[in-house]
């Protein structure tokens, strides 16, 4: 369970563009060997576990002062055993072109492109309590039926919702949380109440 998913709030259009281009190349190469899915999953692990877990490694990747050969040696030593050779080669290509700093942009783009190709959508589900398996499959099939696509769930727990769930697919949010309902009820009651108050002012006041 990760914490509530937050969108990136720094928009680097250059990085986004770069990421898209490299992601297309990576998926293209991986697809020839039929391992696209595996490679993208591994790329995700690389970003989440290694780069996020070790700021030094991320800094080394981004640094222009460490030369290409050194970076390639590091990549070989750290990743060669664990990851698919295509991904390792791809990382070396990035290193050779001084683009290693954009690995996470490549990852975002690659996931989106792969989802697009496989006819999948990413649904971010926020709930007040962790989902159990039955619930999880029910949510996935329900959303899948509506969207007519396969669903990849990304779950997070947010106790502030009190109950119910919030599903976000792309930019659309389906909100059936208790917190939201309470909020709406409060607003409705407040609006309705103030208009009633003005209308029936005399009734509310007695001498």
């Amino acid at each position, binding site marked *: 369970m990760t914490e509530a998913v937050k*969108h990136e709030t720094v928009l680097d259009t250059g990085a986004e563009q770069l990421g898209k281009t490299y992601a297309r190349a990576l998926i293209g190469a991986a697809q020839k060997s039929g391992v696209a899915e595996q490679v993208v999953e591994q790329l995700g692990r690389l970003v989440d576990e290694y780069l996020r877990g070790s700021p030094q490694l991320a800094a080394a990747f981004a640094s222009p002062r460490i030369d290409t050969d050194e970076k390639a040696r590091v990549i070989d030593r750290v990743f060669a055993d664990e990851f698919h050779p295509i991904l390792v080669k791809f990382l070396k290509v990035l290193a050779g072109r001084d683009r290693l700093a954009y690995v996470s942009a490549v990852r975002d783009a690659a996931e989106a492109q792969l989802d697009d190709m496989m006819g999948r959508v990413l649904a971010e589900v926020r709930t007040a309590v962790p989902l159990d398996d039955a619930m999880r499959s029910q949510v996935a099939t329900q959303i899948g039926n509506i969207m007519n696509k396969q669903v990849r769930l990304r779950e997070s727990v947010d106790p502030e919702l009190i109950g119910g769930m919030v599903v976000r697919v792309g*930019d659309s949010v*389906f*909100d059936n949380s208790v917190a939201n309902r309470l909020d*709406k009820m409060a607003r409705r009651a407040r609006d*309705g*109440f*103030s*208009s009633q108050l003005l209308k029936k002012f005399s009734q509310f*006041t007695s001498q």
Partner: protein
Amino acid sequence: MKFNSDEIASVLQQEIEHFDSKIDVREVGTVLEVGDGIARVYGLSGVMAGEMVEFPNGAIGLAFNLEENSVGVIILGDYLTIEEGDEVKALSTLLSVPAGDAVIGRVLDPLGNPLDGKGPVQTDVTRPVEIIATGVAERQPVSEPLQTGIKAIDAMTPIGRGQRELIIGDRKTGKTAIAIDAILNQKGEGVKCFYVAIGQKDSSVAGVVDVLRKYGAMEYTTVICSGASSPAPLQYVAPYAGTAMAEHFMFNGGHALVVYDDLSKQATAYRQMSLLMRRPPGREAYPGDVFYCHSRLLERSAKLSDELGGGSITSLPIIETLEGEVSAYIPTNVISITDGQIYVQPDLFFSGVRPAMNAGISVSRVGGAAQVKAMKAVSGGLRLDLAAFRALEAFAQLGTDLDAATQSQLDRGYRMVELLKQPQYRPMPVEEQILSIFAGTRGFLDDVEIKTVQQWEQDFLQFARDKHGDLLSELREKGALSEELTAKIESVIKEFKAGYKPIPA
């Protein structure tokens, strides 16, 4: 007085019982950056241009710039409590404001929220703020007069219902005063008035509201105020909001008068927003579509065809010039959009000619057709005569000897200038205006001391009101000068002059 808590609780209970919950589906985005009244939002991929969005603090925004990776939103409200990462919700509606009789007599902000402490506007009628103006087939030429109650304007640059007449001039030359007098004169005429204050000091707006209230004009007037301290997006939408409120009356066969005070500040607010949104600047750093910003606003003033009820919106946009520079960008734009302009000048203003209208370059391109016939008969040629007089006056100052004809032209001019002076907040009914100008243009004032012309006029009108009320009402009803009526007026003037002795000052 005490509140009955049981009643209140029952109303609350009703509200809660009638609440039905549906799954809330919304289109969202995330705030990337915010400041200076604008926000850049990631997401909102299905939002449309001009669509309303809502921020978590309740502020409303408008999708202003749709870009490849983000949406530029202008924030109509408090932007100081919006944070990076906040969720923005698309409301899938266009901005609209309350309209109808409920807004009359109120002081509102451009979103229709009360500024006068009288509680929210209670109405079901709303109108979209931005609409496309009515087309050619739905209109008819301007034909009805809209009396401003100011002699100089009604005689020389008459305004018709449905006309756009620009009031232009430097700061402190009485532009607002002209507009306020025009509003005051609509009392009992069935014309709803809208005073849109854009980027003004809140103190001066309070002053205007006070005057309107004092002279009983708030009964048919709405003040839409976005002061100098409101964010630029609010100043930008204020005139559109005011027009939307006025349109409700126009489309229901009524008449409305809208004063935009002033459009140069709106252009400045629009420039600020556009620059912050990184739209390319053009002349004087205004964006390329600042002309459209004003033309689409003023195009909404119209006289509707009889099939649509014959309603109208008359607008009096105000533009402030710098050092009399009418060839700056915004003034030339608005001059070319409007159906004429009233040009007020500081030197006239400070020499005591108030309203300080320069007759030579003030025009009304369509109002002549709408002018009251009798007024047209007495004031025809007055504007050109006055313009010629100004030229002659400059020449006469050289101290040259003048022939008798020129001298008499000068004397007539001095008296007409005197006659056209009018104190503030004292709009005049049209029949009295006709009498005054008749006396001036037909030479009945030529033997009156220049200094006593104003006193003479005042006493004469008092005399006419007291002794010849029937003549005034006949003039008002007929609106045209027959030969018989002309003779009657002449005899009244002669009668007055025979018994009149000016009180020495």
